[in-house]
């Protein structure tokens, strides 16, 4: 809010300039050749090109098209050459080799110096008061891997020292940026930290990724063109890629059906079922790398916490309530049958690490009642469940307004808990206010009883394990769970390089959290995507089990696409309105869809006719009456 007069004048001038610019729509570059454009739709906001400001999946998708990670992800999330061509590990010392002769998309040489520049940017940012860079989603990758120093020993060699021996460095979701362009910017501009002019990284973006952003309408779309200096042997068929934002996913699905777009992420359950019958459309049900949970305020009403009853701190109480939640019913109602009932904190997406609990709970209200009574929570004469101080237990249940589907879960939970004599006061909370409320001491009030939200993980499960560490209370821990044994196991698994040993530790951690129930995992969400099969082929799921072709991990899926518009008379890239713009056989249509809309059209017409006739009759009489 505070800024100098000059800055304000500049802002005013910029605003006016932008408005004027907006008023004169520029002519898009005229295409000489016919371009093959891949259009992908998402309901997420398309808002940033500066990777450090990334928050949502679409942001990550955008920057992994523009840039390479030091090490990219292969089809099954195994490390494959990225900015670095090869690497070796010797204890806590890593050596990465970049490709000799690799070029940035603007023709400048891409070298080890760029890696050092990018990683050092993070290490510098961590040392500032602010503690991280931009939206702070990317620095954790280097911190979790314990990176201490980064050094270039020659043009193509980078040596990285880590604090402890681990392999998390190969999973770092950090884009390697061109030093020759970015070093002109200060840390503050890049991180958008203080009231300085932020660096937006406007197009044309320069990177080593397979496609480079050349046009950007924030909130609307990003258009990418092929990187002329791409180092990959295997390149995708699209000449251009458009990632398009949709205000409603329904519109996106319609556009997919009419062939206006080729891919949709985030299809709704019923649409997904419906799309399965569409010609030329393939649906793919991926498993989300995450879950939706019911979190308990395990701080209860102890000092520094705002829970309404001490029962929340009692493992027996939480465990008993676990028997009063029917995960299958929630999957059926809220997710429309897609997704899977939740159990442990590492989702089945991590096929290597996920385990089912040793002592699973099943939905059984009588069992829940028995366990509550056995733990000392008895019913009073009016059928209300009492806590150990003799007060009736009334739980406040909430969820963020950004995740409306939780209202459905809430309807169930209210009734189930009611059956146990526990009154539940359910209401949605504005997201910002909720984050305030569920932050623990010393940074927040820890003021809630139970609430629902979800987490999304990385290729490595470490980040999903973080929220239950004691030292995260006040930060990312929203259940305020604290167990020294868990904390030890966390550090042990992070430093463990033997897969079998690590799996043992992770299994113990998953069971620990399941049994002590700071979270009750409601379900593992499904990733419902759909794409057209008439323009592009080569759609490849990443990972092959439970994955999706796009919006996965990096640019992998795009590079696999092949051209199916084999006939050289591919339609001139749009100009013609509507369905004509696509080779979609519009004649075929969708059987069920068209009957339904016919019914609808007839229905509406009939309704209008009825009202009109009634009105006409009445008007006639009315006029006559008035004329008398």
């Amino acid at each position, binding site marked *: 809010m505070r800024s100098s007069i000059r800055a304000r004048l500049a802002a005013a001038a910029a605003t006016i300039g932008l408005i004027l610019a907006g008023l004169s729509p520029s002519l898009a570059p005229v295409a000489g050749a016919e371009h093959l454009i891949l259009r992908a739709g998402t309901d997420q906001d398309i808002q940033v090109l500066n990777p450090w400001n990334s928050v949502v999946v679409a942001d990550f998708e955008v920057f992994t098209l523009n840039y390479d990670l030091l090490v990219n992800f292969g089809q099954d999330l195994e490390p494959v050459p990225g900015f670095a061509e090869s690497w070796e590990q010797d204890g806590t010392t890593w050596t990465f080799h970049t490709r000799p002769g690799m070029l940035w998309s603007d023709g400048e040489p891409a070298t080890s110096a760029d890696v050092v520049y990018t990683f050092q940017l993070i290490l510098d940012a961590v040392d500032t008061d602010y503690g991280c860079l931009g939206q702070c989603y990317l620095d954790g990758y280097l911190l979790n891997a314990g990176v201490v120093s980064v050094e270039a020993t020659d043009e193509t060699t980078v040596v990285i020292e880590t604090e402890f021996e681990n392999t998390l460095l190969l999973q770092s979701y950090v884009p390697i940026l061109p030093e020759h362009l970015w070093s002109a910017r200060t840390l503050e501009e890049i991180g958008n930290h203080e009231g300085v002019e932020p660096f937006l990284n406007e197009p044309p973006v320069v990177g080593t990724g397979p496609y480079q952003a050349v046009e950007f309408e924030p909130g609307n779309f990003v258009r990418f063109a092929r990187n002329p200096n791409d180092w990959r042997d295997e390149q995708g068929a699209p000449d251009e890629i458009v990632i398009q934002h949709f205000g*409603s*996913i*329904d519109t996106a*699905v*319609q556009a997919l*059906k009419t062939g206006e777009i080729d891919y949709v992420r985030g299809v*709704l*359950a*019923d*649409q997904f079922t*419906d799309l399965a019958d569409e010609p030329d459309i393939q649906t793919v049900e991926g498993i989300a790398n995450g879950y939706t949970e019911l979190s308990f305020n395990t701080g209860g009403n102890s000092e520094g916490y705002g829970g309404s009853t001490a029962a929340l701190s009692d493992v027996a109480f939480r465990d008993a309530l676990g028997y009063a939640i029917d995960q299958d019913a929630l999957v059926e*109602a809220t997710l*429309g049958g897609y997704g899977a009932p939740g159990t442990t904190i590492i989702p089945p997406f991590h096929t290597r690490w996920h385990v089912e609990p040793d002592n699973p709970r099943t939905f059984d209200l009588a069992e829940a009642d028995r366990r509550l009574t056995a733990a000392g929570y008895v019913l009073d004469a009016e059928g209300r469940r009492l806590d150990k101080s003799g007060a009736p237990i009334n739980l*406040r249940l909430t969820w963020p*307004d950004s995740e*409306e589907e939780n*209202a*459905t879960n*809430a*309807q*169930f939970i209210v*009734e*189930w808990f009611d059956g146990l004599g526990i009154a539940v*006061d*359910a*209401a*949605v*909370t*504005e997201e910002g*206010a909720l984050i305030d409320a569920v932050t623990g001491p010393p940074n927040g009030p820890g003021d809630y009883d139970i609430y629902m939200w979800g987490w999304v993980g990385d290729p490595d499960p470490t980040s999903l394990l973080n929220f239950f560490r004691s030292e995260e209370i006040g930060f990312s821990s929203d259940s305020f769970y604290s167990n020294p044994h868990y904390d030890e196991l966390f550090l042990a698994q992070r430093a463990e390089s033997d897969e079998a040993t690590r799996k043992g530790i992770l299994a113990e951690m998953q069971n620990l959290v399941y049994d002590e129930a700071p979270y009750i995992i409601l379900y593992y969400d499904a990733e419902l995507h759909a794409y057209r099969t008439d323009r592009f082929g080569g759609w490849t799921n990443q990972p092959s089990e439970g994955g999706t072709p796009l919006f996965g991990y990096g640019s992998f899926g795009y590079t696999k696409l092949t051209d199916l518009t084999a006939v050289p008379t591919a339609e001139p890239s749009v100009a013609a309105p509507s369905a004509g713009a696509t080779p979609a056989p519009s004649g075929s249509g969708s059987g*069920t*869809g068209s*009957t*339904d*809309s016919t*019914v*609808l059209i007839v*229905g*509406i017409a009939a*309704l209008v006719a009825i*009202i009109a006739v*009634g*009105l006409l009759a*009445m*008007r006639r*009489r*009315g006029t006559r*009456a*008035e004329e008398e």
Partner: protein
Amino acid sequence: MTAAGASWSPPIPAGRRVGRFDLLVRLVRRPEGAFGVLILAIFAALALAPDFFVGPLQTAVTAHGTRLSPPSAAFPLGTDELRRDMLNLTVHGARVSMAIGLLATLVTVFIGAVVGIVSGFVGGRVDAVLMRITDFFLVIPTFVLALILTPIIRDLVGSGSTEILGIRMTLIVIVIVIGITSWSSSARIIRSQTLSLKERAFVDRARVIGAGSGHIMRRHILPNVINLIVANSVLVFAGAVLTETTLSFVGLGDPFQPSWGQLLEAARSVGAPGLGAWWYFVPPGVCIVLVVFAFTLVGGALDDLLNPKRRGRA
């Protein structure tokens, strides 16, 4: 939208007071009035006793249909994605929509009447200030203001499941917001009526015998503008229903107490239009159009009846 509608016919003072019952009789004698009253009577009955017609509101747990099934003998209006009976939801939606509309109308007309009468009767600087504020609300896009106000007020009052008159706090906030943002045209209309009443002999008489301003406003002005307030309320009601629908449609409704607007929002958020699940959005959509249509007809008819200039001319 209808607040503007109210200003379509400039108010002219009623020549004499029309009895309540007398008014209703004459209203239903007019065909468009009868049509409107009939529709409203039907919806009022549904809203008053939804349980009598379709049983208690179905919840995700008590629902027993199949997911998004088209109309059938068991479910004449089909089901929603939570397997609930759309007929049940639509009838209960009538209660929620009408209750919010009614409460919002009361708030709106109350503010409008107080501002209008005080402004018109007291005059001078008070009038100038009040009318400036009225003009402000008349001219700005109040719906955008409502969009900002709703989440803010909701967080200020807390959105717990406290209920007022059987309506959840989240929806009470909508009532308040509609009240705050749509009273201005009522105030304008009532003020101009008050201005002309002020000059009448009976007001002077009351003043001569020493009646205070408050007394005169309550006992002499208010009874004489009440007809106007009633006619105006009908149009305000239609506007309130539309505003509530639109606010719910952009996601500010309450899924625990679905109004018609909330049902439309739910239909849109599961993608019902694209799925061809017309039974999900056509019933609430038709209900909204019918109710607003009926209120507009009745409002217009009332306006004609209470407006001597028009009445004489017809």
